[in-house]
């Protein structure tokens, strides 16, 4: 084989061939690298792969990929370096030359090539950098990424020769240029891929998030559905409970619409009305035929409820179906609202208050009766608080004392009603009653508004409240003033009767005792005198007893008058005839001045009255005088008068002489043969006839006794 160096053609051919081969190798390398790097989708993998390939192809000491940061600092992101040269992977490079011109020529796609950095007239900072990495020959190619017609300097593809200077061949430079282009494409693809990955990741993340949201939504939805189911069940349960409550309620429970039609009625309505609940549905109370009064009350209350939105209450009466006895109900109307806030329906509940009402009615009736009793009883009722102030006083006590209610309520009882002299003692008694519940009974006087004293017999009771605390006293009193007066009169009467009876008895017993003892056997005149005494006092005793009995019968109304129409003159003449003998004996003339007229009277009692009055007149008239009997009709009554010329009656006796045994002179009865009861009997007879009796008298001149007999008792 010829030596190519000696033959220029052959040498050229050889050189060309070598170039071709190398070019072919480059093309293959580029294709290989391009294929290789495109297999990678990671920039790091691409960069690592290309630095390996480049260093090996160029037989360089180092090959690196340098990536710019936005501030034009940079980092070695891939390196292939032979030992012993210093690695610079991940080295951050802050190269001022780059920063100053923002990448300068590299941005324009130019290649920097130097065979010996010490001869390349490098900037000092650049040289320092070269020295730092032991670089002698340096080949730098920009990696430009085209995006939308714009080229961006991504980084640099660099080959270093460290051991010695090196002249970079044109083919090496072109190779690296092509590789930088391929690298740029690969980087762009990688970035696209990475962006796609990021976008994909983002999308996946979003999808994941959406899935999570969807899951959460599904979960929430499921929860919600569960809650709805639970809530529905709960509501249903409650509804069932409410329905059970309503269905089993003893209270009549109804629901009404605005037209007062029943939408619901519980079974209690049948117990109250006898009408099954279902018959109410869709009907009004009026359509059901309920009493108009009940219908009107319901409608009125329902309208008020619809107008005001407020609950309504009222009470009604309705008879129980089983026995038609009256039942009483308290109605309660309650508005039920729809979701729009408007009143949809009216709930009406009727509570049976019959027992309470009956108790209330009974209590009111009881109170009314007690009040009626207190208001009308002829007994004093007074209630005091613990301080002795009047809390209650009944009308009888007000009438008795002459006070008005407002004059005594709240006043101190003792200072207002008790005589000054008794106040201290009675107040002590009151205190003792509150402490010891004693004395329950006592008597004391009270003073009326007019100053009159009335004697009261009290029956006291302590009042207690519901806590059993003493809150005052309630006293019932009887006005015994008149009773005491009557007792005193009765006592005096018994005393007088006793005296009047004992006096003749003493004579009779004495006289008869003497005779029967025989001591007068030898003294017949004395004995006879004793018999006369006994006889006359016996007569006196008989008259007295008869008069007492007669008067008692008259005054106790045991005598029924036998009234008829009689001629007055005839009755007067009968009385005069009875008295004629005695009058004649006393030399008294009885004159009669009576016109014929009729009187409606008990004949015997009227004659008895006239005889009594004539007898008195005769007794007290002096001899030779006249007694006059007159009778005349005035209006609807006959007025009788008996006039005498006797000694007359003192003015202070004009009323009292009609009392029993009340004579002007007690000896009159004995001296005049009277019993002291004649005028009392006359008064009783006249009063029984509905008339009145009185006397007019002038001392030493005479007296006129008058009485009236009305034609009819009024």
């Amino acid at each position: 084989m010829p030596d190519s160096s000696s033959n220029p053609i052959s040498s050229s051919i050889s050189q060309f061939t070598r170039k071709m081969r190398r070019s072919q190798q480059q093309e293959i390398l580029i294709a290989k690298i391009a294929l290789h790097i495109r297999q990678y989708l990671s920039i790091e993998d691409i960069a690592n792969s290309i630095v390996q390939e480049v260093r090996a192809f160029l037989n360089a000491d180092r090959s690196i990929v340098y990536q710019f940061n936005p501030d034009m600092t940079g980092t070695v992101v891939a390196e292939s370096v032979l030992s012993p040269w210093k690695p610079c992977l991940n080295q951050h490079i802050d190269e001022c030359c780059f920063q100053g011109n923002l990448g300068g020529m590299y941005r324009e796609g130019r290649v920097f090539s130097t065979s010996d950095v010490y001869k390349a007239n490098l900037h000092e900072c650049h040289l320092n950098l070269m020295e730092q990495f032991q670089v002698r020959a340096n080949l730098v190619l920009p990696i430009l990424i085209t995006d939308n017609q714009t080229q961006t300097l991504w980084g640099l593809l660099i080959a270093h020769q460290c051991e010695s200077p090196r002249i970079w061949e044109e083919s090496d430079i072109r190779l690296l240029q092509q590789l930088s282009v391929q690298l740029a494409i690969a980087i762009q693809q990688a970035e696209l891929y990475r962006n796609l990955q990021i976008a994909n990741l983002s999308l996946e993340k979003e999808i994941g998030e959406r899935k999570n949201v969807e899951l959460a939504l599904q979960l929430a939805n499921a929860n919600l559905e569960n809650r709805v189911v639970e809530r529905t069940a709960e509501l249903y349960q409650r509804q069932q409970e409410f329905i059970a409550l309503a269905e089993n309620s003893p209270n009549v429970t109804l629901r009404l619409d605005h037209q007062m039609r029943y939408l619901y009625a519980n079974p209690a309505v049948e117990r109250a009305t006898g009408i099954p609940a279902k018959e109410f549905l869709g009907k009004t109370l009026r359509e059901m035929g309920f009493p108009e009064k009940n219908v009107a009350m319901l409608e009125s209350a329902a309208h008020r409820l619809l107008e005001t939105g407020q609950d309504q209450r009222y009470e009604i009466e309705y008879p129980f179906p089983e026995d038609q006895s009256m039942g009483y109900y308290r109605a309660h109307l309650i508005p039920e609202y729809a979701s729009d806030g408007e009143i949809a329906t009216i709930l009406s509940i009727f509570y049976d208050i019959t027992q309470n009402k009956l108790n209330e009615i009974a209590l009111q009736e009881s109170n009314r009766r007690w009040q009626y009793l207190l208001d009308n009883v002829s007994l004093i009722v007074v209630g005091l608080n613990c301080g002795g102030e009047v809390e209650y006083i009944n009308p009888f006590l007000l009438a008795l004392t002459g006070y008005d209610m407002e004059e005594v309520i709240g006043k101190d009882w003792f200072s207002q009603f008790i005589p000054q002299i008794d106040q201290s003692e009675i107040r002590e008694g009151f205190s003792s009653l509150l402490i010891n519940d004693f004395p329950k009974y006592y008597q004391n006087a009270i003073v009326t508004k007019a100053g009159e004293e009335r004697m009261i017999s009290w029956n006291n009771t302590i009042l207690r409240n519901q806590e059993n605390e003493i809150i005052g006293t309630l006293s019932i009193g009887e006005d015994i003033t008149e009773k005491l007066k009557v007792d005193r009169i009765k006592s005096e009467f018994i005393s007088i009767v006793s005296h009047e009876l004992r006096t003749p008895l003493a004579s009779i017993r004495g006289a008869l005792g003497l005779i029967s003892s025989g001591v007068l056997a030898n003294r017949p005149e004395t004995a006879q005198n004793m018999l006369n005494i006994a006889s006359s006092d016996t007569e006196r005793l008989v008259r007295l007893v008869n008069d007492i009995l007669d008067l008692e019968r008259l005054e106790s109304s045991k005598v029924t008058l036998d009234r008829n129409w009689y001629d007055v003159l005839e009755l007067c003449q009968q009385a005069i005839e009875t008295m004629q003998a005695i009058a004649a004996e006393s030399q008294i003339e009885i004159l009669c001045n009576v016109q014929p007229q009729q009187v409606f009277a008990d004949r015997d009692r009227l004659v008895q009255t006239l005889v009594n009055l004539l007898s008195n007149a005769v007794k007290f008239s002096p001899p030779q005088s006249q007694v006059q009997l007159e009778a005349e009709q005035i209006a609807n009554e006959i007025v009788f008068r008996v006039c005498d010329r006797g000694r007359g009656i003192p003015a202070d006796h004009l009323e009292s002489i009609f009392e029993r045994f009340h004579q002007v002179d007690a000896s009159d009865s004995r001296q005049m043969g009277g019993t002291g009861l004649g005028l009392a009997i006359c008064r009783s007879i006249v009063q029984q006839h509905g008339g009145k009796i009185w006397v007019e008298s002038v001392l030493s001149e005479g007296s006129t006794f008058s009485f009236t007999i009305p034609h009819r008792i009024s």
Partner: protein
Amino acid sequence: MTTKSILLIDDEPNIAEVIAVCLESFKGWKVQKANSGKAGLSLLETLKPDAILLDVMMPTMDGITVYQNLQKNPLTQNIPVIFLTAKVQVSDRERFAQLGVVGTIAKPFEPLKISDQIAEMLGW
């Protein structure tokens, strides 16, 4: 023994008569009668009886007033007085005893015992 003399003051003449007969018949006492308190006091101006029987219930002047008059008079205040009365309640007897009378005889009296009762009261 001198005969005892008694002044009997009573407005009831029949009673006075019966008592007088009793006292004269059983004891032989001399009885003078007055039919009112006033008449009795008048008699006592001259009369000096050994005792006085005095009715309580009399008109105008009752026995108690008569007795009080007797006590005021030195001439009569030492004459023993016995009340005659139809008032027989315990309260009346107590009231009479407090006045200082020798005794009280109730009407109606025991005709056979009245003289003995009086003698006993007077210590005769």
